[in-house]
């Protein structure tokens, strides 16, 4: 067992974990933050995307011990009293159906807008290449991200 401590959505956690424990399992099963789901084994689907020290990471492809000392933001920590503009935009633009990809998609989009506050449609599509959705055909996701951008999310 290895000691890890990290801050998840503003709350500090200290635990002993097996070194092989995946960060996403730590989030879901140790910290009880089940808002972040798991969709694949190979870091292709992006459903488990979180912000790790402010940058997007696929929490299924990070060991919990690698995140020692890190600050993690999940979909459950994104809203600050009110919904984050991306959460609002996803709702308004009907950018989700089953919603399984949504936590990862929103976190990836948050990272995208941090990097590029005013992306073109093409840049949004390219920026979300690591997040798969099987329901929406992506059109409304792209619209939602552009809408959030136009509302000045990054500021």
């Amino acid at each position, binding site marked *: 067992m290895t000691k890890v401590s990290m801050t998840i959505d503003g709350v500090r956690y200290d635990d002993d974990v097996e070194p092989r424990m995946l960060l996403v399992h730590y989030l879901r099963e140790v910290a009880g933050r*089940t808002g972040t789901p798991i969709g694949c084994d190979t870091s292709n689907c992006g459903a488990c995307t979180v912000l790790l020290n402010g940058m997007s990471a696929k929490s299924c492809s990070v060991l919990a011990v690698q995140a020692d000392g890190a600050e993690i933001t999940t979909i459950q920590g994104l809203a600050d009293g009110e919904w984050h503009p991306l959460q609002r935009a996803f709702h308004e633009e009907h950018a989700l159906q089953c919603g399984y990809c949504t936590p990862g998609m929103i976190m990836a989009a948050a990272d995208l807008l941090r990097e590029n506050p005013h992306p073109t449609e093409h840049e949004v599509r390219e920026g979300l290449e690591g997040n798969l959705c*099987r329901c929406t055909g992506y059109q409304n996701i792209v619209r939602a991200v552009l809408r959030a951008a136009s509302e000045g999310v990054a500021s």
Partner: protein
Amino acid sequence: MTVTEIGRARTRKEDARLVTGQTSWTDNIQLPGLLHIAFLRSPMAHARITSVDVSAARGAPGVIAAFSGADFAAEQGSLPCAWPVTPDIIIPAHPPMATDEVRYVGEIVACVVARNKYAAADALELIDVDYEPLPAVLDMEAALAEGSPKVHEAGNKSFVWPLVNGDMDAAFRDAPVVIERTYRQQRLIPSAMEPRATVCEPVGDEFTLWSATQIPHVLRFLLAAVLGIPEQKLRVVAPDVGGGFGSKLQVTAEEFLTVLIARKLGRPVKWTESRSEGNLAVHHGRDQIQRIKIAADRDGRLRGLSVDLLADMGAYLMLVTPGVPLLGAFMYNAIYKMDALSFKCTGVFTTKVPTDAYRGAGRPEATFAIEHAMDDLAAELGMDPLELRKRNWITHEEFPYTTIAGLTYDSGNYEAATAKAVELFGYDELRREQASRRASGDPVQLGIGISTYTEMCGLAPSRLLGQLAYGAGGWEHASIRMLPTGKVEVVTGSSAHGQGHETAWSQIVADQLGVAFEDIRVLHGDTAISPKGMDTYGSRSLAVGGIAVVGACEKVIAKAKVIAAGLLEVSADDLEWTPGRWQVRGDPEQGRSIAEISLATFAAHNLPDGVEPSLDSDAAYDPNNFSYPHGTHLCAVEVDTETGQVSIRSYVAVDDVGVVVNPLIVEGQLHGGIAQGIAQALYEEAAYDADGNLLTTTLADYLVPSAADLPTYVLDRTETPATSNPLGVKGVGEAGAIASTPAVVGAVIDALRPLGVTDVEMPCTSQRVWRAINEAKGGAR
């Protein structure tokens, strides 16, 4: 002033929990003492199991139990196939955990139950299984050949199902033009984003099963029927379910075994699938060889169509496996008039993952084949493919129209949808650009694909299902519960897994009862809350389940009338209904709102004699016909003839799904369906090696496209109401996936026809396109 809810682009009620991470996926469920199951799966496509030793696994740290098939042999029964399509169909026994033979890579042979999933995964590696290899059977044609190794003792042919209407001999005799083609529908993996998961909690002799399923009601019935668990002691819950597309329209080995393990151990257990496990175990879709023959006159008029299908069942018949190709049988004639139709489907066993419903289930295959064949016929005749379609389609004036397949299309307007699509697309302009690129020998060629599709939604009239030997009905159930405060609970037997029923049903009920959209809550997906239902598949929710909701509302309104008359001390005959209120005709001040009636019913102080104190209702609706959405999809692709790479330049879809309850949701369904159809056309294929190993076990190998791979879709609608139901709705869940595949593939081939290319097998990967070009040039294949 009342606002009509039907037709409003309401944002969804479901979203609040989904965008904030408060969703209740099955894998989120925690129970005290919950144990974790891991399944060991066969690494062999076909083998006799000579021994399974789980003793080392039993002794591993954290392990509570380990089982092999022998441990369940006496009680596990056989996974059900509910659709014995012919009287002499071969339905092989299908034990949830294999006992003596395995027939595909991924079949369950043993399991471990441990205190956590890490320990379970470790112990799985300690199970020792001895296999005696048997020959894999992978190719359908080879499987049917004399002397082929057998998948099952009874043979590799499960059934042959024929349909003949009209005089085929007359249609084909002396036909001026006959074309014959063979198309292949590759095998697909549905790839819902949420992998499957189950949790079972036994309490005494009662069980609650949570499962990521589309069909909690059907599952409950079949678990009870097969395992002998009294139905009243079994509760099935489908919590938030992360997509299905048919893949969760199944009664699975894992669900059976989860219940059996919980029963054996008397402790709650959970199983969560990984993606790479799921690709090996969730049923696959499509996988057909389609031999098509069309007879036509020189002017393009269709005379007859012959369809000879080989459909890969995989190793076993799952819930509706044999019925899937039959759902297409009635759709090969599509929107076209013709004199004769013959359809024959042979179900073939192979040592691969069983196939079953995947978005569209039979109709995408049929639509692809007929649209492709129409393009091929147009090329043969030297005619514009759109013109050929116009010459053959059912005209607007001809509805209702009974097709050669025997279905009666109640309504449609192919002219209107096509005209709109052609204009949005800039059809003539693109044809001009295509001509100039052809003339200049541009290495990047332009192709235009057309899909003037229809499909059948709203599965299904129960009588018809009976005639087709399906094991259940096609009705749906709904209840309305009026709460004392005037708020409304709607209970639906449709089981949503991303479609937005909570929103759409609220809109329907708001209009029917005249209550506010916000005052309505929709409940579903739990047999203890929603005891009756046929669940969600086959684009049936709105066209069947939605109509049941209307029926339930009507019953509440009728009850309310009697109560209102009593409260107002007038004759019920003097009352008139305005949305939300019964009032005295000619004296509208005198009336009671539905909320007031509801409260009065709750108090029950002043109810008329003989009126029970309840303003709730139950309704079931059995459709008398399918509904038939249609539309015209046009796709332009650019093909880099040097590399074979295809890129979609524009995509226009004009769909007619009848009355639209919520345009946001309808557009979303179309976007997603179109994307899945494009994925079949260009990207996805479940590939096997010569030994029967699935090569596409992960999303690194099975290429589900991302936002960066897909185009922007330009959507529009025409609205020709269905006449078969009171809302005029048709359904939209599968339309996009049915329509788009032939439009895209047609565009690819259209780009290459001048080079001599007549077909590119799906998916049209760059390599396949390059080879097709080379082959047409007489070069290397």
